[in-house]
């Protein structure tokens, strides 16, 4: 019997994944609000420090703030990690724009493979986050920041607070990943009421330099963590000192194992690293305990505003603009690296097995759009019949035509009136006049049809009833019970799945058949003398036209 509880190694891995996922989430969000285009390079050889196989830089200050907020905990039910993005004008008005929430709910997926599926899905979720951070309204605002306003971020951990977003805020879900200990959810609530922005008349002020000490008098949450600007200025190197993030030495190695389909082997191997991974990602020399790292940023011009500009005392518990993200309560604090003693812990690699990817299969109708009308059904006919081009017949077109027909054809007609000729599917002329459900129906057991090359036709045709599984030679594709959504139709005594299977192997296009072709040809020939007479009448015009071409 399989142990359904998480093994301790899996648990450790999962906690690590969640932790680094949270840190990377914060990096993606803050970097997307810096006001500059982000660019990182792909690398075909894994460097060992790119979590989730994505090149996401780590701004040390941001990681530091995130860790401070998390204080060693992980997102759990009721304890969410939130990144608040707000806007502050040069006059001092401020407004919350977005709250990004990383939450955990209780819905567990005990079956999922931690080191494989969860890891890959977290990677996918980060990609989605990259995409979504560019489509909320705050992105465009952040790209224009600098003169009239700046964008700030704040990280907190605990209960989500959305009241600062004004009325009617909208929510967009970035995605979810199920794990054995709960489901991770990432979403964004964003303000849509930007009224005060549009009515203000902004003057062109020079970029805000130096320190602006700010008291948010009306701040409802006195214990809130400090706000930080999303963009930084270049500075000298006696500035805010942040450690090379000690955990970045905890690299993630991405080594996966495949296994032949018949086995399911999970291997976890330890990696040994000789060289420390690259960590700091800005152009500053950041002195850390005497060691100086200097790294080139390949792209975005991130830089630091030094903190050595007279930041106030500890009783100022509120945000400090442009102070390089100082911890307001403890300015100039030099934090050493490696709280864990400076020895990089040996990371464990996520191990992957090939079986793990076989999650539930979708039916073809999940997510298929029943579009009201395609431009014309003949368009679909053309597509499917154009197999001589070698194009894999688009199953989508086939699906679409069938569904188009379903909307119109089945509504009022009893089954025996539905003739194939009425239907907008290809090869309708050649189909049996009455829809039959017996096995001797040529649609269900088609003869050899060497001309059509639709892969869907080939692969969907099943020998027996649905639901039967095939042998191990077709391990890539698993037979499923064909239960399309919304498929029960009271008017027709068969369900959509059966119908679909029946009509997926259409016979030859009627216009290719000789009889019908000959018919229309005869008609054409008959009308020729007439046409010739008309052309002869207009011969002068045609000649004139030809002249112009020469």
């Amino acid at each position: 019997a399989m142990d359904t509880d998480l093994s301790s190694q899996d648990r450790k891995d999962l906690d690590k994944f969640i932790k680094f996922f949270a840190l990377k989430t914060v990096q993606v969000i803050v970097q997307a609000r810096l006001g500059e285009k982000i660019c990182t390079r792909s690398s075909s050889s894994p460097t060992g420090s790119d979590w989730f196989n994505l090149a996401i830089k780590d701004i040390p200050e941001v990681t530091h703030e995130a860790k401070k907020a998390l204080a060693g905990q992980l997102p759990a039910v009721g304890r969410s990690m939130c990144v608040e993005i707000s806007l502050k004008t040069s006059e001092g008005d401020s407004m919350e724009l977005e709250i990004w929430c990383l939450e955990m709910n209780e819905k567990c997926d005990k079956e999922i493979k931690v080191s494989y599926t969860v890891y890959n899905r977290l990677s996918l979720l980060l990609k989605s986050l990259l995409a979504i951070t560019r489509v909320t309204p705050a992105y465009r605002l952040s790209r224009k920041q600098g003169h009239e306003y700046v964008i700030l971020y704040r990280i907190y951990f605990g209960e989500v607070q959305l009241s600062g977003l004004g009325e009617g805020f909208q929510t967009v879900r970035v995605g979810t990943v199920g794990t054995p200990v709960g489901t991770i959810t990432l979403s964004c609530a964003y303000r849509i009421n930007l009224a005060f922005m549009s009515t203000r008349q902004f003057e062109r002020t020079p970029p805000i330099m130096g320190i602006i000490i700010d008291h948010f008098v009306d701040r409802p949450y006195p214990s809130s963590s400090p706000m930080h600007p999303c963009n930084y200025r270049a500075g000298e190197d006696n500035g805010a000192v942040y450690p090379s993030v000690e955990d970045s030495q905890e690299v993630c190695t991405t080594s996966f194992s495949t296994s032949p389909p018949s086995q399911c082997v999970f291997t976890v191997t330890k990696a040994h690293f000789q060289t420390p991974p690259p960590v700091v990602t800005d152009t500053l020399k950041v002195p850390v305990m005497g060691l100086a790292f200097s790294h080139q940023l390949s792209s975005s011009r991130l830089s630091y505003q030094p903190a050595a500009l007279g930041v106030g005392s500890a009783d100022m518990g509120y945000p400090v603009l442009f102070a390089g993200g100082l911890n307001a309560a403890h300015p100039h604090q030099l934090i050493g690296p490696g709280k864990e003693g400076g020895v990089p812990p040996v990371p464990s690699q996520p191990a992957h097995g090939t079986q793990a990817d076989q999650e539930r299969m979708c039916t073809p109708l999940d997510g298929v759009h029943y579009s009201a009308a395609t431009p014309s059904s003949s368009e679909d006919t053309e597509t499917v019949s154009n197999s001589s081009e070698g194009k894999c017949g688009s199953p989508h077109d086939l699906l679409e035509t069938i569904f188009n027909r379903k909307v119109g054809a089945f509504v009022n007609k009893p089954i025996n009136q539905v003739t194939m000729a009425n239907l907008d599917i290809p090869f309708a002329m050649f189909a049996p006049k009455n829809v039959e459900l017996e096995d001797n129906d040529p649609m269900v057991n088609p003869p050899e049809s060497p001309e059509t090359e639709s892969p869907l036709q080939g692969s969907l045709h099943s020998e027996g009833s649905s639901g039967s599984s095939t042998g191990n030679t077709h391990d890539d594709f698993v037979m499923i019970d064909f239960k399309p959504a919304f498929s029960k139709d009271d008017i027709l005594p068969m369900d959509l799945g059966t119908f679909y299977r029946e009509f997926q192997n259409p016979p030859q296009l009627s216009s290719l058949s000789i009889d019908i072709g000959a018919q229309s040809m005869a008609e054409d020939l008959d009308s020729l003398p007439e046409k010739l007479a008309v052309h002869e009448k207009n011969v002068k015009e045609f000649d004139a036209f030809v002249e112009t071409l020469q």
Partner: protein
Amino acid sequence: PPSTRCCAPSSAGPAMNCRAEVLEVSVEGRQVEEAVLAVLHTILLHRSTGKFHYKKEGTYSIGTVGTQDVDCDFIDFAYVRVSSEELDRALRKAVGEFKDALRGSGSDGMGQISLEFYQKKKSRWPFSDECIPWELWTIKVNVVNLANEQERQICREKVGEKLCEKIINIVEVMNRHEYLPKMPTQSEVDNVFDTSLKDVQPYLYKISYQITDSLGTSVTTTMRRLIKDTLAL
């Protein structure tokens, strides 16, 4: 380029589900390329991994995927794409052909471009390999003509907002965590992934398009597959 003839009927096989998604956009002529590229790149961002490096004992490591922001010139919009010049070039080539076809005579500005992800299944001689699609994205494009600069400005913003919605739709689909091909062994990797690029590894895909001409019939143009990995009979 090699022939795309890659499909053969098989007499028996398990049911294969190909999910299909349709997105529609109405754009000005000069916005076609950027709008379609934004959608294609967003999809491929989610459907590309780092390069696999197989080692002994059946283990493999995965390379790193970089990303970059792209600003549109004719649309108030920005999107993220995978940092791969090869992939970008391939998509631009396909989209360029689509745009030219849309502009061609006889077209009333309607057409659709499809991005299909498929797996290859080897067949025995004399049959050629099968291409089994598992995900199909269709972008329906409707080109509008605008009369003046003011309308154009509004169009810039509107199309930008629409594209934001499309990105959200795409992400929704991706988040469903539906069927993805099994991670392949080294011998199978070319049946699942396109391994010809040097820095990233998208799932095997092909792009095709069709244009609706003014008579309402379609002029089907099939794009030859951009990356060569098919076997011809």
